[in-house]
Every structure is written in C-alpha cells, then in structure tokens.
C-alpha cells in the first residue's frame, strides 16, 4: 500500500507529459503496473515453472506446477548432465562460443580499423561486400556449407581434392568457421563506427609520436573502444550459443552437438520424463539468463541495433 500512496502523491508534479491531477494519475499508474506485471508474468512464467519442474518427480509435477517439491530432486540434473550427455553439449557450446567470439572480435577490429582510418581504392565496394552478410540469412548458404565442409581438403580423411572422407563435418570447425564469417559483417560495421568516434587529436598525437598503425590500433584505439568490444562480444556469444540450424545440418555425430541441437534430441529421447527435460532446458536457460542480467543494458542496446542480422 505504501507503494500506491507514494506514487499518487509524488510524481504527478513533474509528470511533464500527462494531464490530470492526483487521483487520475494514481489510477493510471496502478493500471500501468498491472499491465506491466501481467506482461512480465506471461514472459518469464514459462521459464520459472520449467526451473521448478526440474527439481520435482513426475508425480509431483502433475499435482500442480506452482507447488514446491517435497524433496528437491537435484538428481534430475545429474541425469540430464551425464546420462543425457548435456554435459558434453555444454562443453561443446563453450568451445564453439569462445572459438567464434575471440577471433571475430580481432578480425572485426582490424577490418573496422581499415575502413575507419585509411583511405584506399575500393573501400566502398569492399565495405558493401562485407555488409552483404547483414542481409543474407544462414538459410541461403547452409546447403553449400554442408558440402563445403564435407569436401574440405586434407581434413577428416579427405585428399587434396576433397574426396574420401567427411572433411570438417563432425568437428567444432564446421561451427566455428562459418559463424566467425557471419559475425565479421556486423563486427566490422560496429568497430568502424567506434573507431570513427575517437577524437582525431588522440590519433594525431600518436602519429606524431611515431607510432606505427599496428601499435596505434592495439595500444591506443582498441582499448578506447572497450564498451563497443564488450557489446559485440555479448552479441557474438548469444548468436553462437543459440545457433541451431548450422549444427543441425553440419554435425551428424552427437559428439559435437551444441546445446540447442542436443536439447532437441534429448527431448525426443526422454519424451515423458518432463523433469529431466526441464533440467536440460534449465541448463541452457540459466547461463543465458545470468549473462543477460549482468549485461542487460549493453545487450538490449546491441540486440535492438543488430536485430536485422539473421
């Protein structure tokens, strides 16, 4: 109740946009809270009941989804993690995420630097070419990617002509290489902009100091773009962590599955074992939520900016 009183009395004076004194404003405010609260319950409720379901027995589950379990069944996680192989998928997801995020950042910084700080022939064309990655969806390249990976020379039992084996299929590379390639478009765009925003005096001063372009990039400019680098790292991480179509197509061997693909087969395997499936879902859901809560400001900004990228 204290909440309601505080708001009805408080903010109307400075409420610059809305008309209506005291009472009407209080009603409006209460209504806003109601709608927002409802929207939030609908948005996160499904995840919360999933987490709750993951520590129950199947019988407890049927008794009511909001009821707390008698004994918290952490064993469900053990089963999902080891018997269901989600532990391996988790490690695969981590390997691929790191393998995509780190190189993507460095390549994007270098190419963004080239466009921001150099004048050179063909720069507009090359920039446009790289930006094609923003409009071409993965679906328009995933079929040839399978064959490109299968016939990659000198790998997976292949000879120089790409015949004889499975190439890079069933390896982390089949996920890492295309996702780095898809990330550098957005990365180049954002890093170019971040470099352009650095005051020219800073750059000129370092030129006068005789620093070479390589040192200017890594010692002076790159550290100054840290907020952007952080946002990009988060975006690349989420894209990679969530990617589903690519592993579905290029990873046949479950040994290399990442979490989303792993969860799909996991679901088919444990059909009626809802608590185990819920534990598996939580294993994907929880790390993402933690990352999101820690960096929500950068993430919301980055995602709304990069929303069009498939």
């Amino acid at each position: 109740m204290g909440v309601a009183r505080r708001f009805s009395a408080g903010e109307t004076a400075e409420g610059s946009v809305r008309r209506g004194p005291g009472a009407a404003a209080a009603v409006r405010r209460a209504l806003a809270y109601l709608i927002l609260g409802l929207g939030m319950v609908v948005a996160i409720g499904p995840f919360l009941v999933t987490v709750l379901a993951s520590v129950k027995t199947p019988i407890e589950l049927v008794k009511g989804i909001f009821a707390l379990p008698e004994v918290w069944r952490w064993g469900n996680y053990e089963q999902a993690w080891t018997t269901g192989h989600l532990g391996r998928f988790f490690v695969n997801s981590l390997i691929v995420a790191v393998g995509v995020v780190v190189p993507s950042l460095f390549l994007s910084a270098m190419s963004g630097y080239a466009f921001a700080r150099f004048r050179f022939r063909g720069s507009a064309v090359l920039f446009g070419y790289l930006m094609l990655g923003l409009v071409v969806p993965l679906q328009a390249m995933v079929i040839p990617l399978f064959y490109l990976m299968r016939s990659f020379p000198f790998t997976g039992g292949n000879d120089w002509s790409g015949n004889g084996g499975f190439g890079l299929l069933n390896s982390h590379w089949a996920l890492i290489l295309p996702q780095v390639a898809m990330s550098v478009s957005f990365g180049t765009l954002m890093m170019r902009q971040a470099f352009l925003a650095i005051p020219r005096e800073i750059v000129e001063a370092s030129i006068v100091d005789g620093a070479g372009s390589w040192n200017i990039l890594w010692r002076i400019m790159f550290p100054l773009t840290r907020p952007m680098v952080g946002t990009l790292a988060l975006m690349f991480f989420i894209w990679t962590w969530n990617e589903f179509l690519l592993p579905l197509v290029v990873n046949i061997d479950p040994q290399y599955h990442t979490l989303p693909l792993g969860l799909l087969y996991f679901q088919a395997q444990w059909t009626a074992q809802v608590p185990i499936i819920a534990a598996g879902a939580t294993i994907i859901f929880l790390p993402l939520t933690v990352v999101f809560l820690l960096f929500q400001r950068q993430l919301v900004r980055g995602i709304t900016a990069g929303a069009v990228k498939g």
Partner: protein
Amino acid sequence: MQTTSPASSAGVIGEAGAAIAAPAGPARRGIAGSAWEPYLYLLPAALIFTLFVGVPVVGTVVFSLVHYNGIGALSSAEWAGIANYTDAFTDPKFWEAAWHNLILIPYYVVLPAVLGLIPAAMVQGMKLRGSAIFRVGLFLPYIMPGVLIGVVWRWLLNPVFGPVNDVLTRLGFDPPTWLGDFTWALPTVGVIGAWAAYGFCYVVFLAGMQKIPADLYEAARLDGASGWEEFRSVTIPGLRREIAVVVSVNLINALRAFDVIKATTDGGPGRQTEVVALYMINSAFGVNRVGYGAALAVLLAVITLVLSLLTLKLFGDGDD
C-alpha cells in the same frame, strides 16, 4: 544500397544509426602508411567471409541450377537450368508451406507489435519504480534459443500432462490438443512466436517514445486533443522508424521461422505447420533433392529481402 537499408532501420535505436546512415565512402581522416596497409588489415576478415559466406551464397545459386542427389561426388550433379524453380512453382507442397508462412505473419508481426505498444504507451512519461526490471523481464524470451522455447511450450501445452490444459480442464473447458491439433497447430505456433517477441517490441517502442519531444504533446493539449488523439497524432507518427524496425524484424522472423517449429511440431500434424524453411531443409537433406532445396533457399531469401525492403520503404521514408 540494398546492403544498408534493412540495417539502417535497426540502427535508429542503437549506436549503429550514425554509422549505417553514413555512406560507406572513404574515411576522412587517414593514417599515413604504405598503400597496401589497409588491405592487410582487411585480409583476414575478407578471406574468411569470402570462404564461408560468399562462396556458400554463390553456391546456393549454383546448386539451385543443378540436379544433385547429395550422395555421390559433387561432379555427379547434372545441369538443370531453371527446372528446380519451375518445379517449385508447380509444387503444391511448396505453396502450402508458403501459405503457412503467410498465415504466421499476423501472429509474428502484428500481435507482438500491438502487445508491445499498449504497455509502452501506458507507461510513457511516467517515472515508474522498477521499470528496468520490467524491461529486462519482458525482453528475456527474445534472447532465448528457439529450441528451448519450443521444448518449454511443448511441455506446457502437452494435452496429457501439460499445465495449460490441466488448468483449462479444471475451469470446465474442453481444450484442444494445441500443437497436435490440425486446426490449432499453426495458430499455436504463431502465438508462441508472438510471445517470444512482444517484449522486444515493448523495449523498442519505449525507447522511441522517449525521443518524442514533449512540446509536441503540449501543443496537442493546447489544441484540446484527447489522450487517444494525442496517441494517434503524436505518438504513432513519432514512432514511425521504430515501427519500421519492429515490423521488418518480425516479418523476417515470420518468413524464416524454423527453430521453434522444428522443436514443437516438426511441421506436423500432417503438414499443417510445415513452413518454407523446413520444407527446404527436408528437401535438401531429407529426401536428397539438393538442387530443389537450394532453389527454395534462393526463393526464400529473395522474398524476404524484397518484403523487408518494402516495409522499410513504407514506414521509413522521409525521415532525416
């Protein structure tokens, strides 16, 4: 300009705006150095981009012009001309899948936009305690992988042990089996898509509303405008670019829909929820008609591009 248009709309909220709006021309401030230096900086990114984006994109077009069974060596592929495309246009399964994408559009585009706009308009101009919490909570489903969303909703909507039908039955309803029902499966998948996106729309709209100058509202009030008239004549026009972002992003998601559907219905029951992306993957890797799958991929990409450009043209014109 086709490369920048869709992205430029997205950039209006974030930091990208300025960069994308600016032409990709040569930078004004150059560092002295050897003439080949910028090319060296570009080389790693351009190389990997060419190999794993450029080549596959061209590859899709090439594949779409051949018949290939997916099993033999690539050299066993036979030239098909435009046969795969003409096949697509006379294939009832393709039209059925395309129709399903079309039906998804109101669910993926209009529904979340409206559901995001209403709360955004309600809290506009208020200083609400905990507004950041609401923003985070509402946005959360949007960052979750489609498979996870599918798995969660498949359980919630399960006709035997799912909580949704449990509650509905206790309330005296006789609910359908949702994802397993021939009539309800597609709308259900659509509502799940709307559920995942409305928080995103809310955040975009709210950010846009904060940029509308307050004196526009004062002017409207002096003219004696009601709250609804204010909303219609000030808020909505002020949100034009945000609406363009939301509509084009949601539209792209409707046309590309894949993950959630794969995890919930896998196109079923029957083919009731089979969308183009699903049919494309099944054609290429399920029944080994690689060329045909590639043709569907090209069609899907072209349609998506054209429709999103149209959206931006429709909403985005005239600003700046």
